[in-house]
């Protein structure tokens, strides 16, 4: 692994450069700040595309590493690199960002309060997200992981709905509890690293080579193994973010109160930080402990799928419905990751991307509706399809993607997960499969109540269909929905080698008592 390229660093910090530019924008140009943000996200998308074409899909290890000594005394460096697991997530972030900006463009004449502060927070958030996905040093990972909280805290708290303060403080504290315990685990790992090699080294490749004692012969020995506690500390931090039942209660609040663009980033990217953490750190670093607890996490995943689906079914608030559907869909990723099957690992990664696209799209639709009708109550819509046909089509596509119709991207993710989990225990798949059906029920119910049926409102004369920017946003998402649905290989092909080697090494490690 050699230091060859600064491209990753540019990807991480270009939003921050734009944020500086935005900060020094004189107030006369304040109206143009959105355009600046759009340019920034497009630059991000271009950089990500360059990255995609420079990425060597035949290489399993990390590529394009960039190393800068940061705190060598403590074994901490600025080390970023990319492999087949972070590549799709970077692409997701890079393409969801312009879509989110386009899809939430304020209508002419609407002046948002503190526009400058708002766009700076959006850019800051992107730096945090790129940084977390690209960090290859445990300290750097933690650093960005926490940094993401700050802009999100302000996005929800300043521009959110009525209960925004409650929601944002809850979001912040929930994440903090998990991440501080993770911090203690990081200290311990660095300590062991220092004891093994003489000097501490926090890079993922070094930490992965450490082995933490694990004795799975009885529950007592498991509890006294350091690996167990390290795994649980990391897993807690990550599953809160996912969120896994029963740590999900911050999510509906945060989503419902957040402004649309915040919800889109939250659903599309921030939740993936949790599953990415599990995939990048918790499982490969502590494979035996993860394997030992796999049934628990699968069970929680399945409960999440069904519980989330039922909650979604019972909602009359469209945004809350989408939020609970996220709980349900993220449950699949939990099942996939802890099935310890090659195909399920791959499916989990695909599902992360697919959920990002479909949930992001659905939140945008909710935003469109709310901006036009100022309500999210399902009973106050009805028969809109005739008036806003383009929006109806877009909504339909996102709904189908969300219910994992074959041919849409959702199917590409959920099917391998269920296939992998079936080989572990068909019983789980039976229940998880119920979730797919329930998913169709609540999603189609929502669609029906909003778009079909008789019109219940009389004030629909002024309702206008999607404008050009919104249509572009939905078209980009649609390309991904069907592109991934029909040609998954084209989109995920570059991850194959990495995923292959990733699952082999983990399955080998848990081999003696493994599947």
């Amino acid at each position, binding site marked *: 692994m050699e230091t060859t390229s600064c491209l990753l660093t540019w990807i991480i910090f270009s939003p921050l450069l734009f944020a500086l530019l935005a900060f020094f924008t004189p107030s006369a140009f304040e109206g143009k700040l959105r355009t600046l943000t759009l340019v920034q996200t497009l630059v991000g998308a271009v950089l990500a595309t360059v990255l995609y074409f420079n990425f060597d899909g035949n290489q399993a290890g990390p590529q394009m590493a960039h190393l800068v000594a940061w705190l060598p005394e403590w074994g901490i460096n600025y080390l970023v690199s990319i492999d087949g697991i972070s590549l799709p997530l970077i692409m997701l972030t890079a393409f969801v960002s312009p879509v989110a900006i386009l899809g939430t463009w304020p209508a002419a004449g609407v002046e948002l309060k503190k526009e400058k502060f708002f766009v700076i927070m959006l850019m800051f958030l992107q730096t945090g997200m790129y940084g977390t996905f690209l960090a290859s040093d445990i300290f750097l990972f933690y650093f960005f992981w926490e*940094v993401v909280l700050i802009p999100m805290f302000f996005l929800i708290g*300043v521009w959110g709905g009525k209960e925004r303060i409650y929601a944002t403080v809850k979001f912040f504290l929930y994440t903090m509890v998990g991440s*501080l315990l993770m911090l*203690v685990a*990081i*200290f311990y790992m660095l300590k062991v690293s*220092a004891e093994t090699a003489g000097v501490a080294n926090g890079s993922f490749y070094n930490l992965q080579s450490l082995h933490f004692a694990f004795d799975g012969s009885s529950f007592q020995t498991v509890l006294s193994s350091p690996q167990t506690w390290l795994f649980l500390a990391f897993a807690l931090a990550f599953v809160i973010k996912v969120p896994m039942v029963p740590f999900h209660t911050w999510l509906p609040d945060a989503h419902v109160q957040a402004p649309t663009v915040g919800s889109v980033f939250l659903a599309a990217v921030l939740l993936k930080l949790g599953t990415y953490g599990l995939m990048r750190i918790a499982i490969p670093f502590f494979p035996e402990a993860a394997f030992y607890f796999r049934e628990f996490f699968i069970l929680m995943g399945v409960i999440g799928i069904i519980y989330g689906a039922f909650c979604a079914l019972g909602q009359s608030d469209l945004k809350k419905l989408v939020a609970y559907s996220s709980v349900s869909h993220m449950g699949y990723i939990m099942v996939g990751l802890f099935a310890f099957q090659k195909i399920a690992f791959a499916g989990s990664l695909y599902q992360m991307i697919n959920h990002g696209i479909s949930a992001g799209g659905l939140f945008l639709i909710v935003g469109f509706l709310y901006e036009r009708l100022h309500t999210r109550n399902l009973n106050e819509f009805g028969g809109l399809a005739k008036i806003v046909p383009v929006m109806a089509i877009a909504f339909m596509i996102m709904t189908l993607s969300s219910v994992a119709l074959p041919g849409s991207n959702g199917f590409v993710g959920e099917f391998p997960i269920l296939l992998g989990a079936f080989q572990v225990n068909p019983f789980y798949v039976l229940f998880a499969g119920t979730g797919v059906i329930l998913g169709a029920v609540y999603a189609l119910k929502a669609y029906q109540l909003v778009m079909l049926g008789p019109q219940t409102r009389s004030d629909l004369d002024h309702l206008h269909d999607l404008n050009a920017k919104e249509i572009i946003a939905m078209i980009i998402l649609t390309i991904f929905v069907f592109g991934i649905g029909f040609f998954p290989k084209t989109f995920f092909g570059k991850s194959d080698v990495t995923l292959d080697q990733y699952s082999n090494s983990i399955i080998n490690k848990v081999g003696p008592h493994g599947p």
Partner: protein
Amino acid sequence: MDLNSAFPLVALTQSEVLNLLPLFTISFGALFSLLAGTNKTKGRGYAFIMAFSFIVLAVIQGGYLIFSSDITLLGGTLTFSPFTKTLNLMIMFFALIGVVLTYGQDLKEGLLSEIYALILFATAGMILMVSTTHLLFMFIALEIMSLAVYVMVAMRRNSQFSAEAGLKYFILGGVASALFLYGTSLVFGALGSFELSNLELALRSTSQPSFIFFVGLGLILVAMLFKVGAFPFHGWLPDVYQGAATNVTAFMGAAVKFTAFIALAKIAQNLIFIETVPNLKWFQVFIWLSAAASMIYGNFVAISQNEIKRMLSFSTIAHTGYLLLGLYAMNQSEESGQSLVLYLFFYALSNLGAFAIISLFEEKNQKDLHIEQIAGLGMKHPVLGTLFTIFLLSMAGIPLTSGFIGKYGLFSSAVSAGEIPLVIIAVLTSVVSVYYYLRVIVYLFMKEGTEDTAIYQKLTGASVAAFLSAAATLHFGLFPKTIIHFIKMIAK
């Protein structure tokens, strides 16, 4: 060390004079500042200029002299090594910010021009306290520092709270000083020395020191825990922090705490963390308990405070708890000492900044800023709001700020020392602390202002001090390499 051998005093050599230069500068600066302050109309301005220029001079001298050769004076009583000189430099830096912070605030609160001289006198006491290893000398230094600070606390002459705070601090502080002195005499009686290194040698040679040694040590420990404001000796702290003028509170929270903690660390390292004396284990357990209790008490009580200074004073108790955790870990690992110094330095910076911002919004003679009064201030004054947010995030230990680096270093060295249970208490209680720090940010940015909202007072000094502290907080939060490297190097 036997003091007799140091008398009669010989003439100071050139290098000794050089090393004492910052101390001389500060002492003369204090005197000149007193003189300059006698001008009837412009006394405050002149006193400020005197104090400021001398402290800047002292900081430059101190920075320049860090790597000059080590010297010891008075037969080992005063040691100026790179390490103590760095600590002195940090203290002088706090004093510099303190002096700047006072400019403008003095007029608003009706503080006399002597406040500048008092800051410098206190600084001189702090330098002596950090540089000495002699218990009796430490007592004198402690008194030089404390007497100046008592007066500073009581200096808001028209405020009853200030008078109450001053009296409370003076009486309780006097008791603590007396305990320290009495404890010192008992330790001397038991082991026959005032010098910490000699005491350590004596302890290592006997595993069973006499009972009065333990009584004496206990008294010293209580006095020092009082000075740093650790549970259960924290009772004075919220009232004093609240009653004193905010610039004085800032200076106390930074410099006094820093000095007292360094002294406590020295005493603990030489007298308490001696593995050959089994009974000292009880003192270690006491520090452990005090650390845990300070964290829990400080953080949980801070939640329910609606007044900002009072809330920050309880959070100070919590931070004392984290610092005691670092101190306790020094028992096992040398590195904890370095992390302790770093944490103290970073915490002092954000503390100075936070109080500077508070003083910008306080009216004359106001006891404290109510949380409702800061509603919407962040939106109205975006720059000051952002600075305040930086300081609060730093105290909460969120990345980007130096507070995170400090906390990371402190907790990681404690984990290396094997103190995992205490670290877990620390991180869980710091989640609690995140709540009340966030609450302030919520009021700053997410609530609408009312007619009660505080009015911005134009104070040049406090604004400059806030900017300085914020720049340092962000700089050390993003690029901590140099300072960590430096501390590591000089600690050798």
